């Protein structure tokens, strides 16, 4: 079966510095895949190549049967890839619900004239945007405080609002950039359950970058390890834990700094 997302030989450099070096990587449909590696290994850069924020100099990215390398970020979201950010980036001065409603933008179409005239189709669409967004908030376990300014919520809640917002784009693949960072251990348990439900109940594949290896090993079908812009290992959680290359990258046999960073 062809994978949902397939990267081949993706290379990215900034001003001559090679950030990603001929990376091959794939995410099968219906799976939770994790991307791990020391700080600065190129994980977020890889995310940005997938979502169109960076344009790799070489290689190919295929998603859901189409080439996405040359698409703009909004077109890639429309194609079915949603993401969250490493540092939560909710829209300031807007309510929780309004934040989530942004996800439905690319699935709806009413324009200025329909809004000014208040056409029935536009009203229906507004109701649909609202309902679906509320459903996404319920799904991530936020049942109240929808009118509150999103950025005033506790950090763990903001992370969940961000996931709800990504779900509101009706994605086929969800990219989570360090979703457990800054969460309490109780919240991490909740996150593990949520990711499993996203896959099982909504049928959305999940690709996550995460430093909490315990969490990664528990929920991932597959784990890929990137170091210095090179994919050094790929396999089941168990294989990865015993892979000598991975141990070397993490313990930093030749580079003491990385070990501290993990």
């Amino acid at each position, binding site marked *: 079966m062809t994978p949902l997302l397939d990267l081949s030989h993706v290379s990215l450099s900034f001003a001559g510095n090679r950030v990603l070096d001929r990376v091959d990587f794939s995410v099968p449909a219906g799976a939770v895949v994790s991307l791990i590696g020391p700080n600065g290994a190129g994980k977020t850069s890889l995310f940005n190549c997938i979502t169109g924020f960076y344009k790799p100099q070489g290689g190919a990215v295929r998603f859901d049967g189409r080439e996405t390398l040359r698409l703009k970020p909004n077109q890639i979201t429309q194609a079915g890839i949603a993401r969250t950010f490493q540092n939560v*980036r909710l829209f300031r001065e807007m309510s929780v619900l309004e934040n989530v409603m942004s996800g439905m*933008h690319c699935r709806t179409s*009413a324009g200025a004239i329909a809004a000014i005239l208040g056409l029935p189709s536009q009203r229906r669409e507004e109701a649909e*945007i609202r309902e679906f967004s509320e459903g996404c908030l319920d799904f991530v376990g936020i049942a109240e405080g929808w009118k509150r300014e999103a950025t005033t919520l506790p950090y763990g809640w903001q992370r969940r609002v961000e996931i709800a917002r990504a779900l509101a784009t009706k994605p086929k693949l969800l990219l989570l950039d360090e979703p457990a960072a800054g969460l309490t251990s109780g919240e991490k348990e909740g996150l593990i359950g949520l990711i499993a439900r996203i896959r099982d109940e909504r049928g959305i594949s999940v690709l996550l970058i995460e430093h909490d290896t315990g969490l990664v090993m528990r929920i991932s079908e597959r784990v890929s390890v990137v170091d210095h812009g090179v994919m050094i290992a790929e396999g089941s959680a168990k294989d990865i834990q015993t892979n000598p290359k991975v141990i070397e990258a993490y313990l930093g046999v030749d580079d003491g700094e990385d070990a501290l960073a993990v």
Partner: protein
Amino acid sequence: MAGGLPTRPSAWGGLTDVLDTSAKRRFALFLILAAMVAAPLVLGTYATVILTNALLYVVLALGLNIVVGYAGLLDLGFAAFFAVGAYTVGISTLEFGLSFWLALPLAIFFAVIAGTIIGAPTLRLRSDYLAIVTLGFGEIVRISARNLRATGGASGLSGIEQPWLFGWHISTPLDFYYVFCVLAVLAVFVSVRLANSRLGRAWLYVRHDEDAAEAMGIDRVRVKLAAYVVGAIYGSIGGAFFAVNLGAISPESFSFRQSVLILMAVILGGMGKIPGVILGAFIVILAPELLRDFGDLRLLIFALGLLLIMLFRPSGIWPARGKG
């Protein structure tokens, strides 16, 4: 609001906190409309002319508010769209004998074209560069109007005919006052409808965080262009009625100073807040009139007042939601 859809309180600023029930809100709306109808009958012709001008600025400021307040694009050349509307009406009625009501859609059409021409290539720029480009665009339009034969050169166009509407010749200051009342109410209505729509929310998303908005599948260039074009339409409608009200237009009506004055109305009252912008427009027009007794000092006092307001209320006079 009808249909039980969410209203976006931020567009109304603190007003929704005070007017929490729709009955109270309807009553307040009724009072405002009654005051608008009665004002000229009480105040006399001179005040009516000034109020008409203030209402024109309400329309222009609400248009610029969509660009600056909603979409967060700094536009220093807004008077250009005002000029496009005024000159389109002037030229097409004087030269081609079109009726005003045919010239008006033409003015809107040209404003859309002008907005797209200036917007499409520049809206990829960061906001501060955009300010410079729009400043240049404003000057290009004014200087073109000054030097073209069709626009009447430095002396402009005069003798623009006042329009008829179903047998009513809109001619006296009072007539124009009521016409501008209707325009201002329409401008508010459209602004509210847009603010509570998918497009209105998209403007705010893009203003707050372009990258996150793009990651949500929003085409930022397209959304910004829509703001620009809607703003241009407001400007051109204002300009069209301005031309028939005065009967004469000249390039100096559309100077950089004009753009700044409209921008001041937006910022003074509070960007993105409709009642704030209306208040701003009234202050910008009425304050210099009320200070007439001070003679030469009036602009100085006005400027000092503006500085103080900006020092003590940097986000505008109108209170933000939840904080007022």
